[in-house]
């Protein structure tokens, strides 16, 4: 069953359209991420679902019922905020007990439930402390416990890890994922960090300027972007201007001819963009057999960057075209010397045509 549904729901502030009419449905137990650049409407969408703002158009469904006019305290949702929003005047126990208290849960049950969820987030020892006596990561785990404790239909999270440093953030991502799998809670997660979206989600909803650009599981979003925006936003990519040829191939900006994956929109003569992920582009070294890659180009090395586990080569092709190749770092694998001749090769299957503007249908 859909836990949350938006039907042609939109929001405008005067002339500003914060969210165009969108449709979305989040299934029970799903982990859905709203991803998009700043100002793309992520928070607006979350607030529409939470009931903090009313939609200008359309309807909102919660657990199958029309909740468009239900006040936020009657929606039975949970929300985790970026700044934790723990009550500073209450102990951790009282914070977690708060939603149960407003529901008039008996004291015995409150004690049991609070202890249970604090265990679940690995913080059984902090019940009597005040929020300011906890670290950021601990506070966020308490905030999560405070949601889990009353078993809401769905937990909404607006950049919950945004205030944490990188290391802690990665740890918390795993923790959130663990709790999600363990309890099968439905979660709607907002982030503008594409890596976070790719690691955590069952499904990513990519927003662009108040519209849903594309949605789907992470691999699909990553390997089958339907627009230049999606290709660019998720992961890094090589994107070149190109013209589609009559034989189904394409000539890219550098003048090189490449074979591409066939797409209905890519008719001969059409202007298009061609996208290849850097990790699919191979540097051909002496002794390598390049014949298994049908697309091959030659250029001059510009630079090589070692980024910990991966290494990136920047190579100059004709006509001011730059191509990036990414490999795993291996000891003994040599950097390219700037100016040296390089051969690069990749497979047609990894060569995606994209519409020059807008997105592919279907």
């Amino acid at each position: 069953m859909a836990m949350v549904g938006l039907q042609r729901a939109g929001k405008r502030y005067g002339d500003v359209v914060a969210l165009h009419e969108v449709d979305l449905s989040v299934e029970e137990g799903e982990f859905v991420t709203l991803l998009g650049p700043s100002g793309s409407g992520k928070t607006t969408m979350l607030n529409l679902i939470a009931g903090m703002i009313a939609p200008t158009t359309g309807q909102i469904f919660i657990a199958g019922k029309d909740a468009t006019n239900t006040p936020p305290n009657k929606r039975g949702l949970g929300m985790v905020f970026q700044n934790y929003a723990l009550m500073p005047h209450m102990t951790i126990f009282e914070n977690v007990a708060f939603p149960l208290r407003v529901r008039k849960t008996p004291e015995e049950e409150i004690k049991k439930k609070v202890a249970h969820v604090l265990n679940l987030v690995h913080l059984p020892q902090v019940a009597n402390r005040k929020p300011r006596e906890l670290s950021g990561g601990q506070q966020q785990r308490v905030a999560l416990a405070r949601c889990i404790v009353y078993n809401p239909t769905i937990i909404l999270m607006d950049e919950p890890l945004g205030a944490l440093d990188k290391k802690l953030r990665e740890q918390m991502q795993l923790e959130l994922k663990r709790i999600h799998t363990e309890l099968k809670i439905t979660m709607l997660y907002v982030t503008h960090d594409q890596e976070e979206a790719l690691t955590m989600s069952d499904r990513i909803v990519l927003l662009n300027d108040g519209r849903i650009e594309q949605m789907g599981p992470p691999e699909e979003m990553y390997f089958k972007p339907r627009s230049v925006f999606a290709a660019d936003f998720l992961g890094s990519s090589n994107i070149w201007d190109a013209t589609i040829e009559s034989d189904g191939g394409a000539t890219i900006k550098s003048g090189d001819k490449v074979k591409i994956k066939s797409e209905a929109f890519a008719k001969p003569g059409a202007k298009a963009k061609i996208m290849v992920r850097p990790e699919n582009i191979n540097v051909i070294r002496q002794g390598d057999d390049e014949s298994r890659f049908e697309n091959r180009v030659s250029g001059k090395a510009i630079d090589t960057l070692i980024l910990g586990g991966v290494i990136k080569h920047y190579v100059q092709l004709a006509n001011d075209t730059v191509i990036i190749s990414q490999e795993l770092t291996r000891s003994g694998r040599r950097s390219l010397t700037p100016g040296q001749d390089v051969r690069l090769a990749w497979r047609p299957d990894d060569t995606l045509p994209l519409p020059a503007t807008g997105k592919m249908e279907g």
Partner: protein
Amino acid sequence: MGGGEKPVGAAMNPWGIFSTTVAWFILLFLMLPSFVVVPMSFGGKFEMMFPPTTFDTILYERFFSTGNWIATTITSFKVAIGATVLALLLGVPAAYGIVRGTYPGKKIVALFLLSPILVPVIVLALGMYLYLASFKATGTDFGLIIAHGVLTTPFVIVTCMAGLRHIDPNLETAATIMGASVMQTFFKVTLPLLKSAMFAGGLFAFLMSFDEVVVAFFITEASTMTLPVKMYSSIKWEISPILAAISSLLTFLSLVVCLIGAAAQKKS
């Protein structure tokens, strides 16, 4: 460079020393009358002299044993407490409406609620007198409580507005989404967090009402006089040395109230 370097700011420049000294002298000048009156209150019973020639607590004994003065003091406390409660009851919700509300004309409402600060006290006193007279409420404690409530509410509003601005609105949002009603959110989240601002505003209202003369002078009559009004009227007939004792007590009260306020502020 020589050896003995001082950390930055360790030595004050001459200008700094000068301005600090001036500031202290101005403070001393302003405080002096209050300090002078304290030794005087322990002087003899027939004269007001500085420095006093004898040490005696007779003036205090007089104050505490004169039924008239005690009754007046009690009236003052009653009025000040009443006005404080009234100011808090009106001021806290008003501040909440101004800070958290989103409705057209909010600025005008705020200006209107704060207007008693802008109107000269004498105008307010006259207005209150005429208004209360039409209810036959002049000369009653109730009337003065209303008048002092009007006078002190804006100060409670201002402190509570500042307090509310320091409370993260997300806390209220979080409470609402967790299922708390508007009332539950207000009483369980907002009010507890606003406690110290309310306390400060309340103390301020209490002190203001307790030593307010102008409005009280218009509205009270002989049987319902407050302490400052009685002090003022008794000065008109004779300069009674007992006033020195009362003044000292008032200074002491203000000091205690301010210390309590400061302590509470520090704790929160």
